[in-house]
């Protein structure tokens, strides 16, 4: 591989990183809203969210990205490939995150909530001050696991022409007629990205460790 091809590889890697990053940063809070909305017991809305989460988890990324890219223009919404790709990953990861948030919410120790109620704290303050900080720590391994899965599943959006870290290997081997080197290089870059995420998780967990013995 020459310098140009290396540049192509890095540009593909960058595409994978930033598209995934937006999906993760947006998908974590969206998952929280979906997960809590699902168990809030609000008539109709909670059922709709449960349905959305089930469909979202069951829909392959390739199907979803094609649906958005091809389907939305049919109903008059124009969408470019990159937006469709980001949206696909975000909507998909949010449904998995919703289940993670839901389970940490439902397993939150009842006694701590009662202690907060007993001193006169109201729902919003109890959630913000008592529950969310602890739920975040409890959800972190699951959320990070889902985030790494998302990065590894992200090549699915190449189907609508986005040149990510996987798709770019095709382009490079089309120039060099040597498919193996770019594939190996891409594999190494994926590992570096995931390793960075795992490192981030360690740092965050350490910060929480001072109170969770």
């Amino acid at each position, binding site marked *: 591989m020459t310098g140009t091809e290396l540049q192509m590889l890095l540009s593909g890697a960058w595409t994978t990183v930033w598209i995934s990053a937006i999906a993760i940063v947006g998908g974590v809070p969206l998952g929280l809203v979906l997960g809590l909305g699902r168990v809030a017991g609000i008539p109709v809305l909670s059922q709709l969210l449960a349905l959305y989460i089930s469909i979202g988890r069951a829909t392959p990324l390739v199907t979803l990205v094609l649906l958005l890219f091809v389907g939305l223009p049919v109903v008059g919404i124009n969408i470019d490939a990159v937006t469709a790709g980001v949206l696909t990953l975000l909507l998909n990861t949010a449904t998995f995150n919703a289940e993670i948030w839901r389970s940490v919410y439902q397993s939150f*120790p009842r*006694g*701590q909530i*009662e*202690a*907060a*109620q*007993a*001193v*006169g*704290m*109201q*729902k919003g*303050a109890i959630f913000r*001050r*008592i529950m969310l*900080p*602890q739920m975040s*720590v409890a959800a972190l391994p699951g959320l990070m696991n889902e985030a790494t899965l998302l990065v590894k599943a992200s090549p699915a959006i190449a189907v609508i022409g986005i040149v990510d870290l996987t798709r770019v290997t095709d382009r490079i081997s089309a120039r060099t007629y040597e498919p193996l080197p770019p594939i190996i290089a891409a594999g190494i870059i994926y590992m570096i990205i995931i390793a960075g995420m795992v490192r981030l998780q360690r740092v965050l967990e350490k910060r*929480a460790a*001072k*109170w*969770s*013995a």
Partner: protein
Amino acid sequence: MPDAVPALEARHISKTFGELEVLRDISLVVNPGDTISVLGPSGSGKSTMLRCLNFLETPDRGQVLLAGEPVGRRADGRLVSDKELAKSRARMGMVFQSFNLWPHFTVLQNVIEAPTKVLGLSKDEAVARAEGLLAKVGLADKRDVYPFALSGGQKQRVAIARALCMKPDVLLFDEPTSALDPELVGEVLAVMRDLAKEGMTMVVVTHEMGFARDVCDEVVFMDRGVVVEHAPPAEFFGNPKTERAQRFLSRYA
């Protein structure tokens, strides 16, 4: 002072869990400065009764009055808003069997959280108040420690300081020593004894017969969801009237 307004009063409280009638027509009067022990075998409904006083359990029927004002439910029977209920609860401290400290907060943060967020005290005021209370329960040196590093007895004393920091009118204790190792029970009871002496109004659900006999002004004995006896401790322990209370006490003799 028989005509003084009771600090806390329950009138004809009833509660069912599904088919099970847990509380049947419970009434209770707690005068200011009194310490009341609620005794009874497990399953007698004493914890549920206590939790109805601050509406952690919503009674099906009946009224709770805090210094004469209705708690949780208006005179017409409608439940009050969350905000109003929170206001009543802020005036009643509660100490739980399992401490229920917030593990992500230090000892000091546990104690000042509600005074700053609910009462609106400044941080300095709250910290000053909290430090005084932590000294009082013998834990001044633990203020910056997280709960996981404390023993059960220490946790419970922090929980008492947390409740006291709200300057409550009444303190409710739900079996505060039942989760403690036997050698740690004494340090918690000593704090409660001091509070009783200082004139704190307390309702204590407990299995500590010694505490009930020596510290309390009145004993309420419950069985199967009803108040079976209601007497000063000397009378209850010396001369229990009902066969049920006699049997209960014989197991602790």
